[in-house]
């Protein structure tokens, strides 16, 4: 018996969906085995996780609010990354751009929060975060365009620089450091929640954060930008073949700089939304969205609608596992990270099967010599 891997010409959509759903299901089964080994009933755990602890909960709307809080930065970051990835610019600096954006937004909040009307402060926070993150992205893109440096290495290294700048701000007492809480003797980040925060639209008890609506609007805009506009077309051509783009008379350098700027801007905006709702900086402000966003963007195959769906799923895993941890003390919420890894693995495997097929030939071929 011999096994051949054969390329598929076309995979019908229903088969693709079936494969992906199957991959997720298989991951859950594998996770279930782990849970069983720990003596936890997987069905109970999963039902808690997927309902995010909402059933039988009097303040279920709170859970939805918190779930959306996780979702918004993740979606925006993944959208931003998808712009750069479409152009084959490997921006893995989502973390760093997010942090820089968060610092800029917080600075605006502290410096202008008392003097200016709140809506204006919020707009300024978003603009500052986008500009800061965007410039960090453009810095790397400019080095690549000018000197041919490797964007993967540079964005990666800048992540750590940004993180240590943030840590420095959080741990250094000083008159200049307005990020800290002046009342505390120990250096801790100060809260600006009382000064400014993104408003909610109240639907009964449920408060729909305005950031959620804005994210949906941005999602539509990104979709149209990539699919319909000349700039989106340029991104696709540059990503597909740089030589062809140049040959067609495109200003490739401008396109690269512009696209990376937009990419980082969206990540900066994600940061502004995040600190604008949290009302405080922290060294874990990114929630790893710079990394998770990469996974989301790839799992969604850079498809804008896909990014919303995949983010929703990953959000359920992350938030649901925290909710379930309240009931199942034996299972740490990092179980979700493990599950996420298994899902990623199996979805990638499913992706392989959408492109290839395994054929087993029965005929025994004799070996000689």
């Amino acid at each position: 018996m011999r096994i051949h891997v054969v390329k598929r010409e076309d995979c019908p959509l229903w088969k693709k969906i079936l494969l992906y759903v199957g991959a997720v299901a298989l991951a859950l089964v594998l996770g279930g085995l782990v849970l069983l080994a720990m003596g936890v009933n997987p069905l109970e755990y999963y039902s808690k996780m997927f309902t995010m602890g909402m059933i039988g909960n009097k303040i279920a709307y709170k859970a939805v609010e918190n779930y959306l809080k996780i979702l918004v930065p993740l979606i925006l970051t993944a959208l931003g990354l998808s712009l750069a990835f479409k152009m084959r610019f490997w921006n893995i600096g989502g973390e760093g751009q997010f942090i820089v954006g968060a610092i800029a937004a917080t600075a605006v909040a502290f410096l202008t929060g008392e003097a200016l009307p709140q809506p204006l402060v919020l707009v300024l926070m978003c603009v500052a975060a986008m500009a800061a993150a965007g410039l960090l992205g453009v810095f790397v893109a400019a080095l690549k365009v000018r000197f041919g440096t490797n964007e993967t290495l540079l964005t990666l290294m800048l992540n750590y620089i940004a993180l240590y700048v943030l840590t420095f701000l959080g741990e250094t007492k000083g008159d200049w450091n307005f990020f800290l809480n002046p009342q505390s003797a120990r250096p801790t980040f100060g809260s600006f929640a009382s000064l400014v925060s993104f408003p909610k639209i109240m639907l009964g008890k449920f408060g729909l954060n305005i950031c959620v609506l804005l994210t949906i609007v941005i999602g539509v805009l990104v979709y149209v930008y990539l699919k319909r506009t000349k700039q989106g077309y340029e991104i696709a051509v540059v990503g597909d073949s740089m030589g062809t783009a140049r040959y067609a008379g495109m200003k490739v350098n401008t396109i690269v700089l512009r696209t990376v700027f937009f990419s980082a801007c969206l990540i900066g905006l994600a940061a502004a939304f995040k600190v604008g709702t949290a009302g405080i900086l922290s060294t874990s402000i990114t929630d790893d969205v710079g990394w998770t966003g990469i996974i989301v963007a790839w799992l969604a195959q850079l498809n804008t609608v896909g990014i919303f769906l995949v983010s929703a799923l990953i959000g359920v895993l992350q938030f649901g596992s925290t909710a379930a941890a309240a009931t199942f003390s034996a299972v740490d919420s990092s179980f979700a990270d493990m599950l996420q890894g298994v899902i990623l693995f199996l979805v990638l495997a499913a992706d392989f099967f959408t492109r290839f097929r395994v054929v087993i030939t029965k005929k025994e071929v004799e070996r000689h010599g």
Partner: protein
Amino acid sequence: MAEEYAVELRGITKTFGPVVANHNVNLNLRKGEILSLLGENGSGKTTLMNMLSGIYTPDSGTILVDGKPVTISSPQDAKRLGIGMVHQHFKLVDVFSAADNIWMGAQEAGFVLKKDRYQKIEEMAKKFGFDLDPHKQVCNMAVSEKQTLEIIKVLYYGAKVIILDEPTAVLTVQEIDKLFGVLRRMKEQGHSIIIITHKLNEVMDISDRVAILRKGEYITTVDTKDTNEQELTEWMVGHKIDLNIERPKVEKLSPLLEIRDLTIRSDEGNVAIDHVSFYIRGGEMLGVAGIAGCGQKELCEAIAGLRPIESGKMIHKGENIVGLSPKEILAKGISMSFIPEDRLGMGLAPSMSITDNMILKNYNDTKGPFVDRKAGREDAQRVIDELGVVTPSTETPVRRLSGGNVQKVLLGREIKAGPNVIVTAYPVRGLDINSSYAIYNILNQQKKSGVGILFVGEDLDVMMALCDKILVLCHGKVMGVVHAHKTTKEELGLMMTGSLDLTHKYADKPAGYAADSLFDQEEEGK
């Protein structure tokens, strides 16, 4: 008892997904003969040979070596059985010396690099009558040297059966002669050789027998002395075909594009084009011949505005085009299509649809921020209809099309823009006979309508039949411009290697200067 063959293939079938690359192929190779394997693109020649050399394994069928059935499941197996293959794309490590390239795959190499490897390999090269410096790094070698190294490598590993995949594609006429000399000598020493090519004259020249494949099926094997080129072609394509390339006579118009004293540097900073002068008239096709990498690419890029020039002048209809952006040059009606070796590198975005590739050069002409794909789709449909592109739809990614169709899409887009100068490099690269003729027709149509064409080509026979004049480049220098119907392949070959310089043939006027040049006009315009 039947004759014992060096290699015999019986009923070999190989499929890639739904594509049948080889179907029930029977082939045999006698000891000490040169067998040509002939077939169009996609007829499964390379696949078949890859199964002999262990890169692929057949789905069914038997391979016999020296009369014994064998299983070849890796290149190591092939090596052990004495089968060696020289691939079309050389498999050499650029930064290694010649000796190390051979040594790293040798059985007895061991763990430590021994000093005597240079000497051993030099001795062995001498034994076969090769001239090789074992210390020379591959990246410093000319194409023909690399090929020699590949052959020595295969011999060093003790191959008795040697397969050469399109060995002549990259060589000049003189180098081909030399190679054929080597092959004949190897044959005398008892080696059996399979040579893949689709150049009929070479088949007639070198081989003892010819095996023909068509669309993955084995057609026949004939003795070379009993056949002729016409017959072989008919077997190859399956029907009668006119091998003559048309060269329509068109009234010459005034010079459209004139190049004077042009010097261009390559990416590495070397002089790629060295004080080159030539001109193209409307309704004229000027061929550019030269060994690969003699500045053809740089010249095309410079004309299209993609590469800055060092010095010299380029005027189009009397107007200077030096320093203009690619877009401005495009707007003047100069179109450039360069088919690189990997075919999709320049001019097309492979994962994008035919529609998206149609709008590549004019997507920005419409107002507003949005792309007009509707017009693009109509253009795509028109090109598909007019040039007979075989595709499921206008939205199929170009990458999924076959080579001939890819090139039709590219040329179709260029012609759609209504250019007055077409620069086309290797437009039939890798195409089979039918597709090639379709492309020649498209170009001839354009020529008849008064377009000036610069045709950078590889196949001298084709250029001599299709072009009006041929410009020969050698290391970036012009070796002369000759009339295509008056020259010979030998003359062109000598010029390509720099042994013959015809630039000063006509003492009364410098080569490459048009008698009715529009240069004065440009000077006055200043």
